[in-house]
């Protein structure tokens, strides 16, 4: 196959992957974020302590997390057809991808939210804030750097799953690699796919790390960076001598 023949196919595959991963990430975040937060809130000593709800959600998430994607996809065939009207193509692949992404992301959210200092929650309670205020103004913003890192991890996992989905009729880069690279023994094509995936994954990881670090730096509890520490040393405890006017 020549490059001019290949190029539109490759472009198409990239777009399909983008659609599958993009939509499923969106749904995984939209579903996993509340579930993860709920797991923390309903836990023992949580703000909405509720053992039954906690156990039920926890169990669902556990099963979803440990189910091999390929099996989940097959098992969900009729559900997928009910939702999208078809069980093949990238659109159909979004359904199992999103469903496996939700518990995956929920667990990561749970870990991130659990790490928020309980003192902050208490401070807002003492101000008269309700649970919803605490979620919106404390838990999510304070966990944001970790939540971004979790999203990155989820996107990368979903790219992996989407390749599997592609292999069974989902389209995208996985489908492309299997169809042209594996079945036609065109190793050049396969390596191009691998390279594209490697570049895409690296870019996503880099962007995610960058965003998380940028947010974390301004909020680091451990103190300012070297520049600021240097500035502060010249101006010892500037505000500590201030008095009530």
């Amino acid at each position: 196959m020549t490059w001019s023949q290949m190029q539109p196919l490759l472009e198409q595959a990239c777009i399909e992957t983008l659609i599958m991963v993009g939509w499923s990430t969106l749904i995984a975040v939209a579903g996993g974020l509340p579930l993860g937060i709920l797991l923390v809130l309903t836990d023992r000593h949580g703000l909405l302590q509720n053992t039954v709800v906690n156990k039920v959600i926890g169990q669902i998430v556990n099963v979803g997390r440990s189910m091999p994607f390929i099996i989940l996809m097959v098992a969900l065939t009729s559900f997928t057809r009910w939702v999208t009207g078809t069980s093949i193509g990238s659109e159909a692949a979004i359904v199992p991808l999103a469903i496996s992404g939700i518990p995956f992301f929920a667990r990561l959210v749970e870990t991130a939210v659990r790490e928020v200092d309980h003192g902050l929650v208490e401070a807002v309670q003492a101000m008269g804030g309700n649970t919803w205020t605490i979620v919106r103004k404390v838990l999510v913003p304070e966990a944001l750097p970790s939540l971004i890192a979790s999203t990155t991890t989820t996107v990368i996992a979903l790219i992996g799953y989407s390749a599997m989905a592609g292999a069974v009729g989902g389209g995208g880069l996985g489908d492309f690699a299997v169809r042209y690279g594996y079945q036609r023994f065109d190793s050049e094509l396969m390596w191009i796919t691998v390279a594209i995936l490697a570049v895409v994954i690296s870019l996503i990881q880099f962007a995610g790390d960058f965003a998380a670090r940028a947010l974390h730096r301004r909020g680091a509890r451990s103190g300012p960076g070297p520049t600021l520490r240097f500035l502060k040393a010249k101006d010892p405890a500037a505000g500590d001598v201030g008095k009530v006017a």
Partner: protein
Amino acid sequence: MITTSGLTKIYRAHRSSGREVTALDGVDLHVREGEVYGVIGQSGAGKSSLIRCVNLLERPTAGTVTVAGRDLTALAGRGPRAGRELRQARSRIGMVFQHFNLLSSRTVQDNVELPLEILGKSGKERSRKALELLDLVGLADKAKSYPAQLSGGQKQRVGIARALAGDPKVLLSDEATSALDPETTRSILQLLRDLNRQLGLTVLLITHEMDVVKQICDSAALMDRGRIVESGTVSDLLATPGSELASALFPVGGEASGDDRTVLDVTFHGDSATQPVISQLSRTYNIDISILGAAIDTVGGLQVGRMRIELPGRYEDNVVPIGFLREQGLQLDVLDREQPVLVKEAAK
């Protein structure tokens, strides 16, 4: 302003297991409007439990809490969640924390605005109030900084500004200076004192440092194993013979030089501080008085002196000179050699 009666808090480790910790055991506390009230006690005495029960961050097992005439325990409702009325009442009680508890994701100004957001104030009003408060605590220039860029003392100033955002009548402070160095501690205490005077703010503070009580408290209570064992205004406590708080607030050292000696702690305050009583005593009864230790200090804004003196002879031999000192209006504590603790005058 703050009254607790029969306040009891029992922590249960697990609902099923029998292990229980009685952190508060029938605490009756009365904080008057406009005063700075210090609660002091050893680690585990129940101080934090007490202050957390005042705004019901911790649900008391029994007893009532009244703040500014409102019975908060009645507002609490049954479930673990705080209802609207309790949340409203809380917004009128400021709280500052040992570890500041500032949101790292928000700037200093946005941290101070948070309580105002909860109160539903408009953006303009919020920023006006926040900047005004930051100015009050001396941090106007740090409004756009993040907490991570501030020193501990500055963070606590932000914490105080935030606590004042809802125009509270009452400020609760749990070890607000325990994470700070001595100098910063002094400046934060001074700030609290100024706020107390200027805004008429009632301050209930928890501490394990006597110096804190000494510097800013009008009244104090000593807690031990979930109970208040002593309480009162600082000047009353200092005038109470054998008061543990008074001697802790104002310690004098010195050991008796042998048997057959009487050791007295003499506390001077008010007019008695200016009388030359010791030389009079020595001249009148022709006895040699050794001074074992002495200190003068300002406690709760009062000039107080305390001196530990030693008279020759046993207590029985010194009844007359001791009577003389008491006649001069001095407060005496006789130290018993057998019992190292202060012996109450009344018990003699």
